[in-house]
């Protein structure tokens, strides 16, 4: 039985700066894993490498037993990795429902021509998409806003919608980039429940980047600490947070 995600010796440089240096991680199925580190440590770059936005200079990425190194973003999503973004990226001029339905793009398919000519498969599949999308929206308590433009949602709900859309693509591994950024403590608490719920309900493996230590220590089972592009420490959350090196570099 191999891990959900295993990354070996991942490295990338931008113009001489080694943004990610010899990065390793192993995440088991169903784990809630945290990636922390000071600003500019390379956390988002790791996400961009995992999702094919950048091609690594060195190293290999395995999703279960499949080598996904060097695949492009679309193929990686199809292979089973979905993500959210630090600066929320929704389809802002589309409805909340449509945002999730776009996430379902590769799950429910019918030919373009049957959409144009409104053949029976169009009606059948669209109905299935609507049902599935509404289920997902219900999980995130967004079904009332299904017809609003995504851009008109309050901030916290936009974050939730982004997670819902990522889940719609049917991933095995979910990457969350600072899901609690800009939230008040109440919203963060709610978000922690949601993330736990997603893990249990969808049997999901989750890797998240976060600065909010309350969230990290509250829900993550394991942690990796990134500093200047390389892994400073990794292991069980309680152990990592007590690692003197980590305290020195990060918590300070």
């Amino acid at each position: 039985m191999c891990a959900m995600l295993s990354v070996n010796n991942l490295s990338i440089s931008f113009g001489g700066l080694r943004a990610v240096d010899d990065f390793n991680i192993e995440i088991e199925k169903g784990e809630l894993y945290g990636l922390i580190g000071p600003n500019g440590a390379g956390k988002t770059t790791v996400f961009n490498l995992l999702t094919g936005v950048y091609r690594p200079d060195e190293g290999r990425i395995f999703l279960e037993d499949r080598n996904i190194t060097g695949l492009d973003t679309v193929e990686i999503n199809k292979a089973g990795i979905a993500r959210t973004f630090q600066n929320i990226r929704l389809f802002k001029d589309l409805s909340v429902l449509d945002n999730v339905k776009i996430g379902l793009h590769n799950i429910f398919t019918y030919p373009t021509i049957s959409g144009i000519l409104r053949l029976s498969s169009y009606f059948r599949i669209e109905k299935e998409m609507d049902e599935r999308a509404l289920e997902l929206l219900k999980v995130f308590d967004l079904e009332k806003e299904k017809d609003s433009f995504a851009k008109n949602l309050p901030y916290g709900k936009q974050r939730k919608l982004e997670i819902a859309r990522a889940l719609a693509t049917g991933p095995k591994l979910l990457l969350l980039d600072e899901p609690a950024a800009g939230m008040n403590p109440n919203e963060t608490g709610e978000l922690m429940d949601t993330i736990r719920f997603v893990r249990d309900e969808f049997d999901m493996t989750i890797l998240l980047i976060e600065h909010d230590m309350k969230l990290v220590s509250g829900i993550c089972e394991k942690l990796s600490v990134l500093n200047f592009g390389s892994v400073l420490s990794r292991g069980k959350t309680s152990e990592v947070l007590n690692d003197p090196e980590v305290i020195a570099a990060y918590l300070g």
Partner: protein
Amino acid sequence: MLNFLTYFVNGISLGSIYAIIALGYTMVYGIAKMLNFAHGDVIMIGSYIIYTSMVTWGLDPLLSIVIAAAGCTVLGIVTEKVAYKPLRGAASSLAVLITAIGVSYLLQNLALLIFTANPKSFSSVVSWDGISLAGGELKIQGVTIITIITSLIVLLALQTFIKKTKQGQAMVAVSEDKGAAALMGINVNKTISLTFAIGSGLAAIAGALLCSAYPNLTPYTGAMPGIKAFVAAVLGGIGSIPGAMIGGLLLGIIESLSKRYISTQLSDAIVFSILIIVLLVRPTGLLGKKVQEKV
């Protein structure tokens, strides 16, 4: 060979005119990030001002150019203030594009109303006959030489202005990042006005040279050179001053030679093909900077 040289030199001259227009275009585009479709029509207005002051009022050519440059500068500032500035920060960049098209229509129809559609011509602003080389076989017209020299002077003056003066540096700063420039205490509105003023003033000079070389002034004279100058600016790399110069010259030479050796009707098609080929190989033009979106 002499024949080739004649067309080559003509190409450089035509290219110099494109280059002067493209310099204005590239500056305005760099700072306002808008396809200013009315830029070509400013050339046309400048030419009509020269026509009026030279033919109707009988003024000296040089004085006429000064009047035209002043007139176009004012025109540039006013259109920017009235039509473009209110749309800064609009939800779609198409808004200001359409407004520029509206301004273009407005200027063309204003000219049509005042000067009618009948082509006007004025004797060249350059009275010098030019030089003969190779025992009179290769004749280079005065206006050709003056055009080339003028464009070189304009280029050098502009480069010096941008590199050496405070206002020039402010322009660079505003075109890189308006917000940051404003935080550094640069008056963004004033800088944009200045850019439009310079661009429009250059258009007047280009108009004078264009109508001296091709004496056939109608309300639509500016449109095509305007588009081609934009092509030149893109070809050279939008925002780059030397790029505009190189793009303009290249365009002029290719146009002149393909008119002579391939086909008059197809010369524009050839010019546009060159643009496409260059952009496919170098998506930001010959001297353009590469930008990447941050994820």
